[in-house]
């Protein structure tokens, strides 16, 4: 059942944290600071992985299972993700449904782990997480449906391989709208501004970061690393649609895709530097915009 190459998975595992530091670096430059070194996320994960842990007396084994299941489900999802002309380990009809639901599995366990601490802050974050996810999922699925309808394939690898510059010339509006919806979902799912602010210092206003307040040590390393992998997953899909490079040389394509991910990281940093977080009540409206954009892409 294993057909493709391990390369996309290795690439994701190796470079995912780097994309986060690209965002941090571009924000720092915009703010006139030097910013942490580019390898800081790797150091953080490594440092956490070597530490002990502190557990709340309210928690049970669910709390300790949460990060493990979250990371495992992302790693399995990444085996379905192609990159720059390299086929993923496994591809079959409907594989993108499995990707979305694997991420939902990770979310389920992050949320119940947060509720396991009995903290009202973490409960608040968990509540917001499930609320926004309920709106983000339809938007993501409709965007995927637009791509499926445009290309006629039912599996992520052929779908992304079929998007080309020719597709862009004859169906630019559809792809453009789909891309816009995907970018909104990318920002929401990865807890970026304008949905969530990963660097805020006030627990009351957080979503994702507040859910993992009580995790420490190796558990927290898995959470941090998993967050990087999740961002990489969404970024890859966006980049494959936005910059469909099929030169015939897979290494060249991979280079182009990496460059595009770098650009996406810088753009995210610029976006975060130039606008504030939305009020929480506005977030569902933003996600509804994504749903409408994807539905329009389908109607065109």
């Amino acid at each position: 059942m294993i057909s493709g190459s391990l390369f996309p998975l290795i690439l994701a595992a190796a470079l995912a944290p780097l994309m986060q530091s690209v965002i941090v670096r571009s924000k720092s430059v915009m703010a006139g600071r030097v910013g942490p070194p580019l390898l800081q996320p790797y150091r953080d994960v490594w440092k956490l992985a070597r530490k002990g842990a502190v557990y709340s007396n309210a928690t049970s084994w669910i709390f300790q299972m949460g990060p493990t299941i979250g990371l495992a489900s992302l790693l399995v999802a990444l085996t379905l993700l192609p990159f720059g002309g390299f086929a993923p380990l496994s591809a079959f009809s409907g594989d993108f449904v499995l990707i979305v639901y694997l991420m939902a599995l990770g979310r389920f366990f992050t949320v119940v782990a947060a509720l396991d601490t009995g903290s009202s802050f973490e409960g608040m974050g968990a509540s917001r997480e499930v609320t926004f996810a309920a709106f983000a999922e339809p938007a993501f699925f409709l965007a995927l449906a637009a791509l499926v309808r445009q290309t006629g394939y039912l599996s992520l690898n052929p779908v992304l391989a079929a998007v080309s510059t020719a597709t862009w010339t004859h169906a630019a509006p559809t792809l453009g709208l789909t891309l816009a919806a995907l970018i909104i979902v990318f920002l929401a799912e990865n807890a970026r501004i304008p949905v969530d602010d990963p660097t805020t210092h006030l627990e009351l206003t957080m979503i994702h970061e507040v859910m993992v307040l009580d995790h420490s040590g190796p558990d927290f390393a898995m959470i941090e690393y998993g967050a990087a992998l999740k961002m990489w997953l969404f970024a890859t899909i966006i980049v494959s649609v936005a910059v469909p490079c099929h030169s015939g040389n897979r290494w060249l394509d991979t280079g182009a895709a990496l460059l595009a991910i770098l650009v996406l990281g810088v753009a995210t940093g610029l976006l975060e530097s130039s606008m504030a977080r939305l009020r929480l009540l506005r977030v569902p409206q933003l996600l509804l915009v994504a749903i409408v954009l994807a539905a329009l892409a389908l109607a065109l």
Partner: protein
Amino acid sequence: MTALLIALLLFGASAVGSLIFAQRGRWPTFLGAGGLILGSLCGIIPATQVALGAPPQSLRIAWDVPYGSLYLHLDALAAFFLVPIFLLCAVAALYGAEYLEEYRGKKALAPSWFFMNVLAASMVVVVLAHNAVLFLMAWEAMALSSFFLVTFEDEKESTRRAGWIYLVASHIGAAFLLALFVLLGRHGSLDFDHFDSSAGAGVLFLLALVGFGTKAGFVPLHVWLPEAHPAAPSHVSAVMSAVMIKTGIYGLLRILTFLGPAQAWWGWTLCVVGLTSGVLGVLLALAQHDLKRLLAYSSVENIGIVALGLGVGIVGLSAGAPFVAVAGFAGALLHVLNHALFKGLLFLDAGNVAHATHTREIDHLGGLIRRMPGTGVTFLIGAAAISGLPPLNGFVSEFLIYLAGFKGAAALDASSSSVPMLAAIAGFALIGGLAVACFTKAFGIAFLGHPRTEHAAQAHEVEFAMLAPGFILAAGCVLMGLFGCYVVRSMGPLISNVTHLPPIQVAQALANAAGSVAEVGFLGAMLIGLVVVLSLARAAALARRRVATAVTWDCGYARPASRMQYTASSFAQPLTETFAMLLRTRKVVTAPRGLFPQHAEFHTRTDDPYQRYLFRPVFHAVGRGMASLRPLQQGKVQFYVLYIAITLLALLLWQLA
């Protein structure tokens, strides 16, 4: 067929036996539960064989009832529904034997076992009957026996009310079925083989949709579910929610096989019904505080998913897209089986919780996973499965329906048939997201954190006999999630029977779909392996380091109390607030006043909007209308003689004119 008859005989014998030995201590329980388990084990063998592809069998005995005949027919469709019926009856009997012990001496248990066996037998006959009279009699026996099971605790006012609503709903549904079968059998025979649907297939479809939809719980006909399921003892709720409401789906499918070529608008209708039931069901579930009421609404949601799958399948069928049709039907049918497994499990676990804590209020629970580890872990599996998460069984059936929808979106390019596909995809995604919210709430608030009340703090794990059924069903959820492809592959005869597609085409489409499901199972196994490896690595790493325990970080506050925890209502609040239009939640707020507030209160209540704003006004109006006839009933003999005389006179005049 012989084994099925033996099963029916065993059900009958143990029903009568438990009544005869009603006064002999534990005898009714032994007889009632024992007969139910033995009969189910006996019946599940032929049912499984036929469901996996053995040739159909039938049995026909003449019967004196006009138009009736004892005509039983076991084909793939019947067998597919029989398997979960037998399985759930057996585990519910095992569970009920222990669960009802609490009531022994306080209430008569013999009637409960009598009706449980009658319910099991009547469900079996409903699915096997191939004659309308026999079918309707079994249907009525099913409704009545379950009514008496629901009203087990009839000393409670709320239970009597629930039973009443259930009885009324059942009979409104049955009235539509009566009309349906009269129309189908208008050329003499009421045997299913001789039904005539030459004219008015659309009307017949609508009659079946309402009649069977009332049993299945399509919105807005679902109002009896959230009343009856919480009122019934938990093993009864499990059987009713997991398999009895599915006889509505069975009936709808059976009628579809008589109606000739499927029309696109049937599919559209089912898609709309499915989406409405799915979204409203899960939203109403999310707004509930009562664990069993939440589960009842989630049954409405899952019936909606089944209807959506059928709708997508029928649209595909009428648009000439065999893969869409086959994947849609396969997903819907598999979801019937899967829902039986995880909803049965969740209701039994809810029973454990109620048994151990004497409350079903989610906000009064908390921390149960430490005190009830077995119940906790099975509830977690059920909650993840019902949220459609891999690697469990709920994902497999939802995956097939997604596959049908995406294939339809890709293949049905120019036609308007792709609209229901896209609506199904988006709606399905919304339902999935909301289901995660609903079941993280149910599990997270009830089982995790600190106990919120003394009841929850004093809870103890239940006896093994009440845990074992949950473990059996949870194992079923995991196995179906990993090895669902084998079930999908064996559904060929069943689906060609329902869709009338050529078996070769069906087999080809199923092989395609099963290929994807096999990959899902493989990756699911990989996921489990990866979790085990990561957990071991983590445990090994932490074994040599300092692992400390502290209070939960509450932003610097060092004395968090259990009452400060997030509650189920607050967890669901952003979503219930967003969908307030649909839910019509009522709030009772006493805000704190003054500099030193003494008293404050906040209470929400989400009644069923359809019952409140649709059925109650209608039934009140009917009641008022009927009350105006009351003067006719004077209770005086003279008046009745007068009525007879007037009637005779009128008849005479009519005859003369």
